[in-house]
């Protein structure tokens, strides 16, 4: 009996180590390699003790100005898309939470059905239209696209979170003479903050990392960081791994820290989104 317990413990420990290795090894590897001097990156077996150097980051800074421009574009697009998606989803989620009518029910079914359409499908008709409107290669087009692909999930999430706020609070505020917008701003938004953060996590991660739309709709002006990294991967004169790792680390670090800090809201959003939406 005792041997069995020890075996189970051992099995669990092995499983935990395997899970940690699987999840973290690629990330740790890329970050640590970005700090390795020149040839150490290719050392066999990989070196875990080395003199950390910023040389790849210096090269990145001096030779890949376009990457930092890409980071700025990514930041603009991410902030814009997150604001748009959060505001739109909160307004709609409030309506769906507080009102019930047949056409509202239908419209929420439509909202969920829209998610079945893959993003690449809408690029076909949008590509010529965006070009004609002169919106190609602008931040605006990415902001709109990124926000749109999350307002559906966002609305359903916000409804779930707002459902937990008692209606009495709305009514009390209304009796005091608050308008609908005031109720939304002063009562609903503060109390639904966890929901708003959950929606924000989704949009931030998506917009910061997205490749397909950026690839199709931007060229030079609004080119985002992932696009620049993809060019580094595909560069014809061979990949400069050190610089690629440095760029990957810079692109990854902010969003990874964000996800770690917001993990509670991410988990809440994922579970609410999957069960309710």
């Amino acid at each position, binding site marked *: 009996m005792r041997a069995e317990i020890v075996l189970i413990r051992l099995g669990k420990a092995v499983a*935990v180590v395997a*899970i*940690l290795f699987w*999840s*973290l090894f*690629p*990330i740790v590897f*890329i970050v640590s*390699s970005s700090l390795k001097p020149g040839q150490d990156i290719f050392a*066999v*077996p*990989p070196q875990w003790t080395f003199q950390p150097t910023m040389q790849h980051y210096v090269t990145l800074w001096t030779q890949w100005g376009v990457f930092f421009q890409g980071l700025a574009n990514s930041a603009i697009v991410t902030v814009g898309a997150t604001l*748009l998606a959060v*505001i739109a*989803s909160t*307004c*709609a989620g409030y*309506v769906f939470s507080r009102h*019930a*009518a047949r056409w*509202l029910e239908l419209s929420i079914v439509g*909202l969920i059905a829209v*998610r*079945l*359409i*893959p993003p*690449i*499908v*809408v690029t*076909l*008709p949008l590509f*010529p239209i965006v070009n004609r409107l002169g919106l190609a290669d602008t931040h605006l087009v990415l902001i*709109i696209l990124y*926000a*749109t692909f999350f*307002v559906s999930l966002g*609305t359903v999430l916000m409804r779930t979170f707002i459902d937990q706020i008692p209606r009495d609070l709305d009514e009390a505020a*209304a009796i005091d*003479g608050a308008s*609908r917008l005031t109720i*939304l701003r002063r009562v609903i938004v503060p109390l639904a903050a966890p929901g708003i953060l959950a929606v924000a996590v989704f949009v931030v*991660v998506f917009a*910061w*990392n997205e*490749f*397909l739309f950026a690839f199709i709709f931007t060229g030079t002006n609004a080119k985002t960081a992932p*696009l620049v*990294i*993809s060019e580094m*991967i*595909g560069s014809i004169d061979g990949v400069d791994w050190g610089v690629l790792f440095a760029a*990957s680390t810079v*692109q990854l670090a902010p969003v*990874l820290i964000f*996800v770690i800090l917001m*993990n509670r809201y*991410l*988990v809440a959003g*994922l579970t609410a989104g*999957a069960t309710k939406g």
Partner: protein
Amino acid sequence: MAHTENRKWLVRPAWEDMVRKTTFLGVVPLLAPVQLLLLVVVILPSIYVVWLSFHVSSFGQTPEFTGWSNYLRVLSDPAFRSAMWNTIVIVVVAVHLEMLVALGMALLFNSGIPFRRILLVAVLAPYAVSEVVAVAMWRFLFDLDIGPITLLMQGLGLPILEWSFDPIDATVMIILLTIWMHLPFTFVILYAARLAMPSDLYEAARIDGATRMQCFWRVTLPLMGPAILVALLFRYIFAFRMFSEVWLLTGGGPARSTEVVAVYLYQEAFSYNAFGTASATALLMVAASLVLASGYIWLLRRQVKNAR
């Protein structure tokens, strides 16, 4: 008390109208942003895609009605068939493997392990990694000349993944990569479902003399059934539209052998300017993912019901 009730009945105060009644004018402005975005970006373009799929069209030409010929052309194109086959293989293998691993992890996490919160965050980490960076990692780790994993496999005398010229090995790479990126999602859904299960069910089962295995098959699995179905449905639909991983890892090569449907669609539209056939591909893609998803879900649902 009766007095106020009466008054409410006779003259409804203005605030009540605002909060309780669903008036078109009161509600529509708040719904408008979401509805407008979806209408302009998703719904109208999708309708246009349906229309395009029945026309021959390319840049600068007036579209011409051609009936089903785009669909026939796509369906008889060997490159499409190979892309569809690759997609189905990747979806079926990757999603189910991922589900098994996630289920195992959810049960492990629930069985009482130390540092659960920290481990959960570690498992979530790949969720933050972009497709581009993940591909950079994979390309280096499995590089045929310098990749540490390739060298490790060689050192151990194991077969290596010759992903840059062997289509099967390339598919294995894509599957590994997509599982790595999406395991956090599947895991969180299953783990939350496991946490939500009442523990007295297990006590009851134990008292009735159920073994560990019986508990798993008769209690855990049926109760987690709905969560498993939801996670599967999401993953089928999302895996079916996979583009970036494949595009960045293999570009669909060697010789179009690892293309998936989304990559085929991209090539038709943006490399060959054939928007008609690309649109037909798009609709076939949506239809196939729906059929695959609903078929599996229907089967599983029946099994879950039977198991109860």
